[in-house]
């Protein structure tokens, strides 16, 4: 494993399997009377959130706490982050405080990369601009593997604003790495023109794709994109690309409906579609904790210098 997790390009297919397998063990820990293990006792994990995202921050916070790490939250609003201190100065402060891992969420693509230049800690990308969101992709891979038993050969469509979606990028890279068959679907203005070079297919036709899918992954659509002329209206978007009640029947039996949250019910997904049994949106959230425990464990648990050896 790399020291940092900045992009899905940082992990190999073997790493992904190890991360998911380790997460499996943490799922078991979550069923115990005491859901906490001492693995990272004495380590400090900093959540550095420049963009508000309560659910991702809480997921990381719980993951670190269940590993017995000490957790510090730096978020916009309550710290010097909002007083205009530069990313670099904040990083140097965290370094001086002895952070072992920094989980960063930032609206600027690439900020986690810059952070690695200024801190010795492991850096975990919790979403950077329109770049990547690798922990979301890994929890999605975990959920797919858990529900469908495999990743290789799965037919997955990622539907929506792929161009601006960090989730779509990380998930595409991850799925392709694991041998899945990925199709990106959305208005042509919201699909990167060179997406085929990622090893995925591109389509503009939701109805044509649905009957052949194992997973329909719906992305959040931001209303402000309409203002920027990417599509004419939310209504038209919903009619052409939304996972509506009328459309969902075309999915094969057993196919999953996924969404990274938070949902715009009635825009990219109909409210009652989100609540169907084949929708695993809540499991995604539960699995997020186990995946983040797995990542913190693998990144921090392997940060020493001694040769690995068995010790009875």
């Amino acid at each position, binding site marked *: *494993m790399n020291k940092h997790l900045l992009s899905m390009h940082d992990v190999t297919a073997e790493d992904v399997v*190890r991360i998911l*397998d*380790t997460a499996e*063990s943490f799922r*078991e*820990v979550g069923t*115990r*009377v*005491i859901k*906490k*293990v*001492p*693995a*990272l006792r004495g*380590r400090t994990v900093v959540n550095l959130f420049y963009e508000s995202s309560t659910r991702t921050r809480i997921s990381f916070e719980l993951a670190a706490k269940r*590993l017995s790490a000490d957790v510090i939250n730096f978020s916009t609003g309550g710290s010097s982050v909002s007083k205009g201190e530069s990313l670099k100065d904040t990083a140097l402060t965290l370094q001086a405080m002895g952070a072992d891992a920094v989980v960063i969420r930032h609206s600027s693509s690439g900020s986690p990369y810059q952070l690695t230049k200024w801190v010795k800690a492991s850096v975990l990308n919790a979403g950077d601009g329109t770049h990547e969101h690798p922990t979301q992709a890994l929890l999605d891979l975990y959920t797919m593997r858990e529900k469908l038993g495999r990743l290789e050969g799965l037919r997955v469509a990622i539907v929506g604003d792929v161009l601006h979606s960090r989730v779509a990028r990380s998930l595409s890279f991850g799925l392709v790495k694991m041998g899945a068959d990925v199709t990106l679907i959305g208005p042509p203005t919201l699909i990167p023109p060179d997406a085929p070079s990622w090893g995925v297919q591109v389509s503009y036709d939701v109805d044509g794709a649905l009957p052949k899918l194992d997973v329909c992954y719906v992305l959040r659509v931001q209303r402000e994109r309409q203002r920027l002329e990417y599509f004419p209206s939310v209504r038209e978007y919903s009619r052409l690309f939304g996972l509506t009640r009328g459309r969902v029947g075309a999915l094969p039996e057993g196919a999953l409906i996924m969404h990274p949250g938070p949902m715009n019910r009635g825009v990219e997904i109909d409210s009652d579609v989100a609540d169907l049994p084949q929708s695993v949106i809540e499991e995604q959230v539960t699995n997020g904790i186990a995946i983040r425990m797995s990542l913190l*464990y*693998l*990144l*921090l*648990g*392997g*940060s*020493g*210098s*001694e*040769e*690995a*050896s068995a*010790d*009875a």
Partner: protein
Amino acid sequence: MSGQKLLDAEDIRRVLTRIAHEIIERNKGAEKVALVGIASRGDHLARRLAEQILEIEGTKVPVGVLDITFYRDDIGLKAEAPVVSETRVGFDINGVTVVLVDDVLFTGRTIRAAMDALMDFGRPRKIQLAVLVDRGHRELPIRADFVGKNAPTGRADDVRVLLEESDGEDAVVVEEAG
């Protein structure tokens, strides 16, 4: 197979039978006793002991497996995080006498970790320890209740337990440090 054979298949069978008897004797039967093997070979030994106990006493004792990785005291010292395997304790350990089962007792650190892990599942009445081989060199004040074979070894010697289930044969081999 190089190295000196400490126990062969027949020895192992006899030793496990004896330990099974001792467990029953010490606990005045096998009611309220559970076996928890420490992954991975302690797991296989725990199952075999359970079969023996069933044969001798007619009591079916619950068997679990414990992976102690998250409780190790050397996490973060190695270049790679230790590989984690399955933990399955599918029964209530509250008020039960839990016999931890492992293949080799060495520094005692694994057993310390196992006891901590076990406590997170509940409050056993008693914890006992059964090992196939005790090779000495303790670093913690830990002692086994049931020992298959005491084997004085050098600190750097390699003691390997091979079991049918994972290695295709039953044997304990000592390889002296070159």
